[in-house]
């Protein structure tokens, strides 16, 4: 379903950007599949990190450099380390997930597949389908522009998110504390 449509844009040529796009897309999909099929949670985490890296690669292709690096720092560098940490501490990999109902698995896969099918069918002919996303150029993704916008228009949400962070921190400490 990801094949380019036959009546593709005349500007479509196979250059380095396109090769990279396809490579990153295939990598992202493959590693996402591995996340949900790996039996060992540690491998799931590692595959998820690969997924995040390929998504970061997509950001770089879209010249959203700031988001690309923040994605790596926040997701790969902090969040996934937390996951790895918890899994290692609990030593979950030893007690593999018990065999479960195969029908349930099938039903889950089927439901997800149906959702994908419906969404793709619905979005196949949207009005924006011919539009292009700017690749490799445009500097709205650079830190200067983002910063200006963030600290002028979005300064209130920014502060609120910092409060959210603080409360999440306090919450995590309170929950995790042994009583």
């Amino acid at each position, binding site marked *: 379903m990801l094949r380019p449509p036959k009546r593709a844009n005349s500007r479509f040529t196979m250059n380095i950007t396109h090769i990279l796009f396809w490579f990153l897309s295939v990598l992202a999909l493959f590693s996402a599949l591995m996340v949900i099929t790996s039996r060992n949670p540690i491998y799931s985490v590692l595959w998820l990190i690969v997924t995040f890296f390929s998504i970061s690669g997509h950001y770089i292709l879209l010249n959203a450099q700031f988001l690309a690096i923040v994605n790596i720092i926040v997701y790969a560098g902090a969040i996934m380390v937390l996951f790895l940490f918890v899994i290692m501490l609990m030593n979950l990999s030893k007690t593999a997930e018990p065999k479960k109902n195969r029908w349930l698995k099938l039903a*889950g896969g089927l439901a997800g597949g149906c959702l994908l099918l419906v969404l793709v069918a619905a979005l196949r002919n949207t009005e924006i389908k011919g*539009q292009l*996303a700017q690749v490799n150029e445009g500097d709205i993704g650079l830190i200067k522009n*983002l910063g200006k916008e963030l600290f002028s228009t979005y300064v209130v949400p920014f502060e609120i998110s910092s409060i*959210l962070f603080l409360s999440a921190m306090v919450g995590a400490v309170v929950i995790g504390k042994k009583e």
Partner: protein
Amino acid sequence: MPINYYIFLSLALFCIGIVGVLTRRNAIIIFMCVELMLNAVNLLLVAFSKMHHLAKITADATAVTAGTDGQLFVFFIMVVAAAEVSVGLAIIVMMYRNIHSVDVNFLNRLKH
């Protein structure tokens, strides 16, 4: 790059996340699949922002900041995701301490 590709890629990633949530019973992996879904949305937001930017700037060369908000949303999503993970993992650790398992099927009883 046609926006269609990005839409379909993000959809595929999102649905993989959903399948993961539906089929796995390990709470941590379910949590990770939620992160995957968030990331699919992020990717689409960035692609849309670039699309929006291109459309605006070809129409009006002075609109240099058009589309910035899309990327800022992604930034906020990441912030929320980080906060969510810290609390969520604390809950999972707590749950593991109480029932010595992270299988969500054991959580269908209220009392332990």
